[in-house]
């Protein structure tokens, strides 16, 4: 299933769901859809539901494999989430998909009250997390993690790549309770296969060690952090990368252990606004425990972001590999 992307992306806003894979990067097609379809072969309680975005969340793979367990709810996100709650009350394990903006903003009360207040077994998987589309704020879910982190009992996942996603699917299905998972769809980068890594719910994993900088990262910024680490190695800067795909509940033990090691700049990197995401979550954990290393955030600004081509925007807002590397070098002086 692996292949590579050949053509250089055009610098345009027209692609709503442009692949975030870099030129020549190894990718895997529709890891979420394939993992869910496979899981459903042995789990008759798994169902798929969407609000007119099956193709754009890779749920169509599941729909083709299990048509009787696929429910097209139409472009009605409140209905999607509330009905998924009803399905869970009848003993099913629904995976409900839409874009992250619509789940976090339009359907929030239904997720809060119908699903989470009863701790129902609904898995919400949402495409276009953070800045992964050039369409502007209508489609850019830059504050979804902040929104969901506030709900008691929900699990929040921001996977890095195709491997993370395909391993997270059975893990969150096994977990009892509501889950919000950010989703990458289509040709999804494959990065973590080169590391000694397995997704574990609630665990942060040290992908590489280093004595100068500790990057605590999540989502696609783990992919970028690993690239940054390689770049900075050429400048004799030794960068550790702690991948934190589970943002709630946070693996505080591992974060405290790594951040307590002296002599390192701690940088938290996330594809999310600087408000209320992983960065502030880590900062709070460190302060509450009296751990105070030099601390910086790489995150999207507290602003409505521009429309444009993703490479342009990632440079503009400081989450491209080059800008991240430059900023970290600057912080090190």
């Amino acid at each position, binding site marked *: 299933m692996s292949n590579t992307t050949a053509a250089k992306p055009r610098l345009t806003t027209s692609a709503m769901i442009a692949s975030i894979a870099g030129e020549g990067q190894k990718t895997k097609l529709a890891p979420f859809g394939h993992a869910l379809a496979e899981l459903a072969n042995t789990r008759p309680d798994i*169902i798929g539901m969407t609000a007119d975005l099956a193709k754009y969340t890779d749920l169509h793979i599941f729909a083709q494999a299990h048509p*009787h*367990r696929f*429910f097209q*709810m*139409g472009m*009605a996100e*409140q*209905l999607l989430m*509330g*009905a*998924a*709650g*009803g*399905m*869970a*009350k*009848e*003993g*099913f394990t629904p995976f409900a998909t839409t874009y992250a903006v619509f789940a976090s903003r339009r359907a929030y*009360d*239904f997720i809060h*009250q*119908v699903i989470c*207040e*009863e701790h129902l077994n609904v898995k919400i998987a949402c495409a276009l997390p953070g800045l992964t589309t050039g369409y502007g704020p209508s489609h850019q879910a830059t504050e979804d993690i902040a929104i969901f982190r506030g709900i008691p009992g929900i699990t929040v996942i921001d996977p890095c790549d195709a491997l993370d996603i395909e391993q997270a699917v059975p893990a969150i299905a096994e977990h009892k309770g509501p889950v919000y998972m950010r989703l990458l769809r289509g040709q999804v980068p494959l990065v973590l296969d080169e590391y000694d890594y397995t997704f574990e719910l609630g665990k942060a994993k040290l992908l590489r060690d280093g004595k100068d900088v500790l990057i605590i990262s999540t989502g696609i910024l783990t992919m970028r952090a690993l690239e940054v680490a390689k770049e900075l190695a050429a400048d004799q800067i030794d960068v550790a990368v702690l991948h934190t795909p589970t943002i709630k509940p946070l693996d505080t033990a591992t974060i405290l252990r790594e951040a307590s090691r002296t002599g390192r700049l701690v940088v938290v990197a996330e594809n999310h606004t600087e408000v209320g995401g992983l960065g502030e979550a880590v900062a709070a954990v460190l302060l509450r425990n009296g751990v105070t290393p030099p601390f910086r955030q790489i995150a999207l600004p507290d602003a409505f972001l521009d429309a444009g081509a993703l490479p342009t925007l990632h440079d503009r807002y400081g989450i491209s590999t080059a800008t991240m590397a430059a900023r970290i070098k600057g912080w090190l002086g």
Partner: protein
Amino acid sequence: MNTSVNTSSAANRAKLAERAYRIRRYAVRMGEVQGQGYIGQALGIADMLAVAYCHVLNYRADEPEWEGRDRFLLSHGHYAIAHYGALIEAGIIPENELETYGSDGSRLPMSGMASYTPGMEISGGSLGQGLIIAVGMALGLRLKNNPAFVYNSMSDGELDEGSTWEAAMSAAHHGLSNLICLVDINNQQADGNSNQMLGFEPLADKWAAFGWYVQRVDGHDLDALVAAFDAARAYPEAKPRVILLDTLMGKGVPFLEQREKNHFIRVDPPEWQQALAILDASQPVVGAEQ
């Protein structure tokens, strides 16, 4: 436990009238415990609840989560004071528990929540959610080949919520013949008369246009309620069903019926006992011909 007997008999009607009287009485007693409560709504919906719990629903009083039960969803969570009365009448919660209504640590909070109360299927109160949950449960029951019905009880104020109409489209689209929606039309919501907040008429035409089998009845006519529930269950086409219930807030206690209508009807401390006395004085006698 379907207590249905000959649906047209006067005896059955008298039994249901007695059930409704007791549900009203439980609600007034709960209101007295707290000195407040949505008593107007409770008195208005007691007749429907009596027919639902004592004529229509399949359930097991000693096993509230029995898989074969009909699901009764209270979308308008503030009507819990009436629903608790019905659950007491159904034998699902004990009568003496009404003394705890709305108190700290009680299983009977002011707004109904699933995790607190046996027989309370959902946490309502964020209005406009019940019918959507009902769609999911009805789809799930169908997927399991479970013949139970899902009933969603909602207020006319919830007609304002867009989610209600998402659910209405969806239920018809999926041909959910196991879904029965009950709309309490008392024409009152927080800021005034419902039809002056956001006009909803012609309501029967709206639901029909959305693809539902529609009946509109006097919500205090027990014969009409029995017939409507029976027709809703028996309707042969693959359509969801809605029963629109025209009701009067405070029904059965004339001084509350006539009081200035509001979301919260004001009740002075001595009036709870006066209301009970009025209900007792007009208590139906089982077996009496009417």
